[in-house]
């Protein structure tokens, strides 16, 4: 007589240590094998888009901070250059450079969290704390610049809230020379660790075509082997002036596009960001940062889709203006929102432990998914 078997449904979250926030995954299991993963979102829904309709354009900026709270600077960045484009404002050189420095530092900080928590998901506790120790230093740089450590409201339409602190340049250079060797330390401790490689290589392989069709962007897409970075392919601000490389996944220890590649691309990107920050510091011009601040932000009737390369992927703002001081509609194309949609596709046929590895490698932030 054949045994009657039944699929087991395991609810992961919304309170679970490794769903990176309040995500609920409904996992259907056959033994320990995953047959289907259904993400349920919305536990952190804070009505960003509805709020934005009732605010003036500058008032929306603090709300953008709270979407991807690990990369607030970059969220500001995308929104303000979108609005500036609608208004036709050209910001001073110095502002452009400072924005890029802040953006790239934020990218490093965001990747640090991504890599650290990924180590935590796999069970390595120590690299997480090493990376957080170094992230503190970046947050301190932000703090001396604008007084806030997590939610900055730093970039304004047409300018910045504060000019750089006199010590900023020195401290940033110190940070760069301090942090470079630490990347090697991370690689030795975690990236090339045999157990870590065993856990992540050939897990959750994402082929390039699937990734494109699913709209996956950012490090996740690059790990699949496609050299596609908006900083190069659709340049905004002054990224065309810097010399940096776009790391792609090469399948060093497994297949191209596996979890290890997604991890390693982020490690390499940190190095490139350091390089950009260094160049920007060298070229940083003097000037008045508030020169181009508009008296009143009132874009003409129309719409714009502005996209930037957020640490997590393509962050897009689709802004419709009806000619008043309030945006008519702000739709955010959140990179994590789109990247998470692939989870089911990647997890099928893997083990429970691999869901955690795959979810961690996608680097999602729930604040951005639920908005």
């Amino acid at each position: 007589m054949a045994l009657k078997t039944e699929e087991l449904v395991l609810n992961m979250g919304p309170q679970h240590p490794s769903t990176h926030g309040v995500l609920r995954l409904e996992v259907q299991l056959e033994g320990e094998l995953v047959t289907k993963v259904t993400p349920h979102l919305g536990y952190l829904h804070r009505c960003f888009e509805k709020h934005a309709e009732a605010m003036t354009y500058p008032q929306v900026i603090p709300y953008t901070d709270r979407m991807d709270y690990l990369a607030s600077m970059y969220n500001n960045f995308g929104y303000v250059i979108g609005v500036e484009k609608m208004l036709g404002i050209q910001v001073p050189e110095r502002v452009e450079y400072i924005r890029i420095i802040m953006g790239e530092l934020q990218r490093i900080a965001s990747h640090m969290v991504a890599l650290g928590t990924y180590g935590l998901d796999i069970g390595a506790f120590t690299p997480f704390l090493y990376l957080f120790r170094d992230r503190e230093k970046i947050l301190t740089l932000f703090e001396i610049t604008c007084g806030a450590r997590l939610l900055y409201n730093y970039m304004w339409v047409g300018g910045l809230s504060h000019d750089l602190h006199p010590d900023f340049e020195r401290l940033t250079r110190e940070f760069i020379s301090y942090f470079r060797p630490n990347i090697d330390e991370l690689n030795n401790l975690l990236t090339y660790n045999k157990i870590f490689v065993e856990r992540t290589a050939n897990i959750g392989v994402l082929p390039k075509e699937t990734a494109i069709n699913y709209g996956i962007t950012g490090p996740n897409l690059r790990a699949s082997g496609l050299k596609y970075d908006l900083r190069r392919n659709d340049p905004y601000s002054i990224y065309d002036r810097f010399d940096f490389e776009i790391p792609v996944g090469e399948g060093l220890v497994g297949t191209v596009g596996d979890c290890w590649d997604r991890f390693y691309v982020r490690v390499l990107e940190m190095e490139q960001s350091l390089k950009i920050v260094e160049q920007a510091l060298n070229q940083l011009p003097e000037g008045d940062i508030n020169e181009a601040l508009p008296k009143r932000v009132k874009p003409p009737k129309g719409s714009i889709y502005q996209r930037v390369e957020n640490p997590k992927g393509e962050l897009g703002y689709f802004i419709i203006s009806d000619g008043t001081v309030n945006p008519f509609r702000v739709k955010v194309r959140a990179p994590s929102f789109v990247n998470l949609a692939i989870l089911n596709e990647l997890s099928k046929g893997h083990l429970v432990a691999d869901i955690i590895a795959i979810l961690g490698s996608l680097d999602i932030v729930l604040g951005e998914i639920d908005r």
Partner: protein
Amino acid sequence: MYESLVEITGLEIFAAFVSAAMPVAFLVPFVIIAVYLERKVSAHMQDRLGPMRVGYHGLLQTIADFFKLIQKEDIVAEGIDKKFFNFAPFLVFAGSYAVYAALPFSSKYIGSETDLGIFYIIAISGLVVAGILMAGWTSNNKYSLYGAMRSAAQIISYEIPTALVILSIIMWTGTMSLATMSEMQTAYFWNWNILGGPEWGITKFVLIPFLLVAFIILYVSTLAEVNRTPFDMPEAESELVAGYHTEYSGMKFAMFFLAEYGNMFAVSAIVSVIFFGGYQSPFGYLGNTLGIEWLVPFEQVFWFAAKGIFFVFVQMWLRWTLPRVRVDQLMTICWKYLIPYSFVNLLVIGIITLL
């Protein structure tokens, strides 16, 4: 100790109680220190300070935590099989505590001077599996169930290489009593089993590499048996929240905790008895040099604890360095690598012993 107490007092019950309670006097302070150590070791490895507020450098932190745990409300969720749910932590603790009965703390103290010490330990530690399965099953929680299943599978699998290695050592030393085994590796560290035992000759040097392999196999599989990283599958917090003790709180949780740390020391002690001379000092005894006879057993306890704690420290060191393997890889390591190697090792050591 039991016999001498019977001789002195003439009360068998009293003697039994005293010699049974001795390990508690060791275990509870040890757990308190080990938890503190774990925090400090992890903290310093991770470039932070760890507990600093309670007492000097946080020395009293664990004691404060202990009182906190005692005061906690004992939550028993609905839909739980209460009888077995309440019983499970005690069974787990009993299983790990029973191991202490056969550990030779010094030449003067061993809970039970049975000839089958090592055999008994392997057998009795199976109780822990029963307790863990009970905890996982009665919790009526899928995470607990997964944790328990994994844990049972893991402990049972890893008992095989452990037993094989121990078997090869038994073959070679010709005794199953841990006390005798310690006795044999007397005096200086070159007499330890890891360095080929007390008898001088070619066999000693031929054996060293195989004994080293045996030691590594034994250490790895004991790591897995006590569910420490990189084999902490059952309580893999990033997947299974807290594994089989997810639903426990307060004192019952503390029992699991106590059992875990008790186990950690027990397996470290077994490793040290089998390979590193147990309670024997590596440099000879101060008591013998000074002519103070009664000092020797205390020195032996010191060395026994020191060696055990050193291996506990190595366990912590590994925990805070390595990531966790996946459950199927865990089985692969056991069945495809450790077991064949330990078979080969058994064979080689057997042949060498015969010659």
